[in-house]
């Protein structure tokens, strides 16, 4: 069936994520404003990060005025394009003891891969692999969403943050919109999320964006954007919500 998608004008990664966001809006009443709050909050974080690409604050008005890419996604719902590199050293806890940098301990990990998004009989748009990954990682770490101090979530789009929060149990399925709309993800909020600005405003280094910021926070090296860091959740996605993996990290040995 090569060409069926192009024949419908269905191109790029923006399309499936717009379709997923629309489905969530239709099923649960999620609004454009609720997506916008995520974009504005992450930009507020980015203003505090010396390594963020986009450091000028934005307002909800800026969000709504940013051009459509594919409705319901504005430009400011979409991640950046960045050049850069990130390296992570993984070792035993023992070997990390005399390293120059403070260690960040892996408490738990998980993954969930729903696979082919186009297959019928799935709710791929609104229920992601994060659900399975969360269960595994929380069980391994011996923690739950109520214990998480800070989230570093893969945020290729604002919508990805919203649906990921639901699948990690921070709120019920469908309630991501009302959950985020009070600004709790931004600076000063009760659930600091994407504290370096994320992929929307910080830099787009794929899953290394949330992972790198999780390690910066875990080490206590966040400077103006440092938050409480006892339990750090870092997540990564691949494809169009086809693949998902996560780490639960902490500065403390478990």
């Amino acid at each position, binding site marked *: *069936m090569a060409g069926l998608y192009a024949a419908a*004008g269905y191109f790029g990664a923006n399309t499936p994520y717009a379709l997923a966001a629309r489905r969530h809006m239709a099923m649960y009443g999620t609004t454009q404003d609720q997506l916008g709050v995520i974009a504005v909050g992450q930009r507020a974080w980015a203003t505090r990060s010396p390594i963020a690409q986009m450091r000028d604050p934005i307002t909800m008005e800026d969000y709504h005025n940013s051009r459509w890419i594919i409705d319901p*996604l504005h430009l400011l719902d979409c991640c950046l394009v960045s050049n850069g590199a990130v390296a992570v050293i993984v070792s035993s806890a023992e070997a990390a003891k005399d390293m120059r940098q403070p260690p960040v301990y892996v408490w738990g990990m998980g993954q969930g891969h729903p696979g082919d998004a186009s297959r019928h009989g799935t709710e791929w748009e609104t229920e992601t692999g994060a659900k399975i990954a969360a269960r595994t990682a929380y069980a391994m770490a011996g923690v739950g969403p109520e214990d998480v101090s800070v989230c570093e979530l893969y945020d290729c789009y604002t919508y990805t943050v919203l649906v990921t929060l639901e699948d990690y149990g921070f709120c019920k399925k469908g309630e991501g919109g009302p959950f985020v709309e009070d600004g709790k993800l931004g600076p000063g909020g009760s659930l600091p999320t994407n504290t370096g600005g994320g992929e929307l405003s910080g830099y787009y280094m794929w899953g290394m964006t949330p992972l790198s910021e999780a390690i910066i926070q875990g080490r206590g090296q966040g400077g103006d954007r440092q938050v409480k860091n006892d339990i750090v959740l870092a997540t990564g996605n691949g494809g169009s919500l086809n693949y998902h993996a996560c780490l639960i990290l902490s500065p403390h040995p478990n």
Partner: protein
Amino acid sequence: MTQDTVAKPLPEADEASKPFWDGAMAGRLMLMRCSACGEWRLPSRQHCDTCLSDKFTWEQASGRGTVRTFGVMYQKYHPGWAAEMPYNVTIVELEEGPRLPTNLVGISNDDIHVGMPVVVQFEEHEDIALPKFRPI
């Protein structure tokens, strides 16, 4: 080359999908169906992704479905689509279950909503016909 002279990208039938495209040219929406477990296959493929059987038949679908989700495209990815922007990209969930990427015709983008009932109609090109959908 101006935008007007660039055609939209059109699919090419391959061995697995030929009955789908032949059906479209004849005004019929044809779907592959597993002979072993009855599961529908779209896109068409050699093996059933439920039971792995390689046995199948082609059956005519009703042509009716509902809008599962849609977006309205403002970004120019292909010059052949430039003149139609903004255009809708729609996933129709067929009565039989499979989901088809397509476009709605005969409706303003502002009037599209998730769950609306639609029916297939075929947009004919020289060598191929494309399934599009209109509101019922």
